[in-house]
């Protein structure tokens, strides 16, 4: 093959690279479904809001875990940081406007991400995993001890969040505003993450995940990139936490706990990491399943989830989306 006079942009490889960020035909579907849910299930909007927040949180984890390959078990540290930022500012009468509140939540979480990331990301593997866990435990304990500010074990409830745009009230009993608000926030954050992962920066994160040593050898400032990715992901997790606190008018130690951090990891693996929409599929599948299983078997519902996870871990390392992709590839072998 020699270079065509028009350059290489028509080569299949160049076309694949230039076309992968384009909107695919099915991509509006999850958003339309989310809107349809609003009209179809007005009684389940509380549950729906919780799912949307979880998707956002899982998306932030996908950026570090799925794209940059940073294995963390402490991502709830940033979720909790965002939630407590919103909660403390509102409860102590300092700030209760929701949108700017989210920006503050993102900033605080990003700062914690920066401070911890600079230290943590010198390590890898099991050490890194333990250190992320420790960071989260430290924050949780700090929130527990600073009782006067955080409400300690009881948390802060009845947060006086101002109406959205000065008009739409957050009503905990009829969370219609919350649902649409969280959906909008999720959309904005999703567009950001989607742009990021298809950019040259995102490509270099993928390079770090695939082969860190080689990234050093091509002259990439690996640690700086990882820290930056960690900070951005922390900010999004902070937004998820902030929006959760606003939607529930409530914040407690659970937002910072291992339970939340582990659940979001499970959700991402279940849906498929490094795939953007894995967060959507995983959150919906996990939470819907948890919801129905707990109704059918109130005492032993976690057993069902556990079995499902074992099956996924054994037979589908790329999660539900991985199964779908493999099926699509089998029917159209030259798609990618």
């Amino acid at each position: 093959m020699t270079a065509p006079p028009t350059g290489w942009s028509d080569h299949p490889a160049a076309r694949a690279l230039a076309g992968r960020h384009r909107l695919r035909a099915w991509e509006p579907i999850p958003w339309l479904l989310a809107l349809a849910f609003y009209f179809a299930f007005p009684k389940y909007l509380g549950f729906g809001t919780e799912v949307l927040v979880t998707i956002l949180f899982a998306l932030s984890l996908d950026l570090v875990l799925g794209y940059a390959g940073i294995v963390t078990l402490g991502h709830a540290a940033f979720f909790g940081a965002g939630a407590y930022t919103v909660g403390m500012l509102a409860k102590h009468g300092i700030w209760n406007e929701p949108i700017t509140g989210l920006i503050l939540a993102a900033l605080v979480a990003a700062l914690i991400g920066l401070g911890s990331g600079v230290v943590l990301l010198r390590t890898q593997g099991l050490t890194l995993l333990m250190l992320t866990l420790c960071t989260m435990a430290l924050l949780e304990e700090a929130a527990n001890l600073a009782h006067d500010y955080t409400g300690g074990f009881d948390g802060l409830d009845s947060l006086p969040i101002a109406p959205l745009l000065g008009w739409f009230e957050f009503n905990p009993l009829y969370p219609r505003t919350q649902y649409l608000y969280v959906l909008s926030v999720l959309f904005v954050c999703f567009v950001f993450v989607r742009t990021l992962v298809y950019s040259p920066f995102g490509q270099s994160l993928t390079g770090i995940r695939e082969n860190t040593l080689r990234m050093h050898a091509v002259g990439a400032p690996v640690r700086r990139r990882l820290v930056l990715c960690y900070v951005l992901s922390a900010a999004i997790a902070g937004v998820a936490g902030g929006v959760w606190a606003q939607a529930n008018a409530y914040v407690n130690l659970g937002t910072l706990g291992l339970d939340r951090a582990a659940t979001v990891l499970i959700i991402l693996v279940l849906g498929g990491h490094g795939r953007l929409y894995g967060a959507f599929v995983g959150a919906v599948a996990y939470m819907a399943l948890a919801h129905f299983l707990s109704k059918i078997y109130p005492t032993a519902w976690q057993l069902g989830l556990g079995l499902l996870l074992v099956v996924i871990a054994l037979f589908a390392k790329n999660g539900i989306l991985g199964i779908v992709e493999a099926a699509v590839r089998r029917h159209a072998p030259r798609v990618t």
Partner: protein
Amino acid sequence: MTSAPLLETRALRRNFGALAAARDIDFRLEAGARHALIGPNGAGKTTFINLLTGVVRPTAGVILMNGRDITAVPEAERVKLGIARTFQINRLFRRLSVLENVYIAVAERVGAAPSMRRPAGLRRDVVEESMELLDTLKLSADAARRVSELPYGRQRLVEIAIALGLEPRVLLLDEPAAGVPSAESHIILDAVERLPRQIAVLIIDHDMDLVFRFAQRITVLVSGAVFATGSPREIGANPDVRAVYLGQVARG
């Protein structure tokens, strides 16, 4: 300092505990050189490359590039100075396409990599250059394939392509034909012989056909120390070298 070689080491030493993997190595690589580094297994050849690229810090001694002391310069910055390498065992971005593998290196060199907004595929300059480079290595037909799907010999070519994407002035090839079945090894040889003249190449290899065909100068490393340096003819005729090394492989 016009006479300063492109890359030079003086009394370069590295100890791993009690083991001296590099013993006071004095070495010169001239601009545009074709230099081979040979020696028995465990002679410290890869350690020497790791020292030159900054992966391993020397215990003592200095490394100079164009007469400038770069001993303390970190790995990533040495790449910017023009030192690139390949690895003895493939270190590729296995789940990415061949084009993406080279794209990452080129994007890093031209400073596109920190960009967060434009889609990577729309950096036409990076894509064009990567494809051009793959074409010179006869890899353009494979550009869309996942690199892990390629035959091993062609994966070794991608190793070289990534290094060339950094536009090096010094290229360190650590056993480029290692693990390649003999039926395929000629493609590596061809590629190595057709490397741009202006790049100084240091090649480690056990394949004496390749070394003697390619190199203008050979350095023999034994137990971490320079045992002999000279032209291929001198090295081939050196009885000591034949005794310690060449005698072990089937070459008369």
